[in-house]
């Protein structure tokens, strides 16, 4: 049961229950708040910061900020969108994201949110890190160049698959995704192509093999409609939350 408590996002009334985060209530109401590391099936992480909103003069991440009755949330001002765009640009220059050469292009959440925030270029100086591609697994390839450290695979592997295949190692700008196997290679781990950890990757980092370009460019999930309508990359696997949007538009 939805209680009769409400708060406002950009002036629009949003009902919520006790214990809801701003993101929980917004998703349920079909109000889009851009996000990358959040997936309603998992505990909020709050690391990408793309869901930054302003309320009561403070900037907070919507995915882990509890909703409070009558709060006013700014989710779409130029100032908020500028912050989000800068965060997206930071993620783009941190890794090696070459959209035209990526199998995930058109169905990538990083790319879709970048379009949503009207990002036109990576803007900042590229880091061009040297990262590996691990194709040792017969059914899954992982391209670390495209990892945005959202930890969704870490959480899915730990909480759903119960395999603990993925971890984040290192600190600061040297943080990186690592594989928990004797050789550190994916082929040596317990991961399977049917694992949740493979399905939740919002970018082109973890890709199932043998099905490249199954869907042609032009027919991919974000090719014709923005992410605010289509919803998350991983939403189709589970979430009822965006089904309203998808079916009505």
């Amino acid at each position, binding site marked *: 049961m939805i209680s009769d408590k409400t708060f406002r996002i950009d002036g629009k009334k949003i009902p919520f229950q006790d214990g809801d985060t701003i993101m929980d209530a917004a998703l349920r109401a079909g109000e889009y708040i851009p996000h990358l590391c959040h997936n309603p099936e998992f505990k909020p992480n709050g690391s990408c910061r793309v869901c930054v909103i302003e309320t009561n003069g403070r900037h907070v*991440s919507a995915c882990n900020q509890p909703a409070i009755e009558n709060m006013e949330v700014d989710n779409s001002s130029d100032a908020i969108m500028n912050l989000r765009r800068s965060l997206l640009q930071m993620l783009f220059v941190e890794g090696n994201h070459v959209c035209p050469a990526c199998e995930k292009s058109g169905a990538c959440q990083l790319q879709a949110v970048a379009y949503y925030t009207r990002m036109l270029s990576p803007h900042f100086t590229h880091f061009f890190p040297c990262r590996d591609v691990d194709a040792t697994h017969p059914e899954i390839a992982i391209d670390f160049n495209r990892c945005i450290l959202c930890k969704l695979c870490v959480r899915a592997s730990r909480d759903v698959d119960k395999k603990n295949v993925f971890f984040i190692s290192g600190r*600061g700008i040297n943080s990186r995704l690592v594989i928990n196997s004797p050789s550190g290679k994916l082929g040596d781990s317990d991961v399977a192509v049917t694992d949740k950890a493979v399905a939740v990757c919002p970018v082109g980092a973890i890709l199932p093999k043998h099905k490249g370009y199954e869907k042609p460019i032009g027919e991919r999930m974000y090719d014709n409609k923005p992410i605010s309508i289509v919803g998350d990359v991983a939403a189709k696997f589970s979430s009822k939350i965006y089904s309203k949007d998808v079916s009505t538009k």
Partner: protein
Amino acid sequence: MVFNQQRDLLDMVQNFSQFFCHESCGFCTPCRVGGTLMRNLVEKVAAGHATSYDLDEMKNIGLVMQNTAHCGLGATAANPVLNTLNKFPDIYTTRLAHTGYEPAFNLDASLEISRQITGRDDEGAHIRDE
């Protein structure tokens, strides 16, 4: 903090930005990436390669870090840069290369690998400063 007049404040800022870059846990985007971008820009200023555009960039990156970082470290990591840009702009502006655009890397030095591969070292294989 108290410094005597012999202290090079940009040296202090460089030290701070390197410190916060090193101390960042890497959890959130603005501190992990923004902090590193900030350190690189401070070093660009210190090396005499920066332009006024870079100073604006530092202000913007600092603003993103202050407003979006997950914890207090990220939210305050840009303060040494932002405070000195505000109170002691001279330590930056006196070191600027010029007011136009300047790339983040040395054009001539980045041709070195190509020179080695081709065995060339003539004038045409160099980009000289004007």
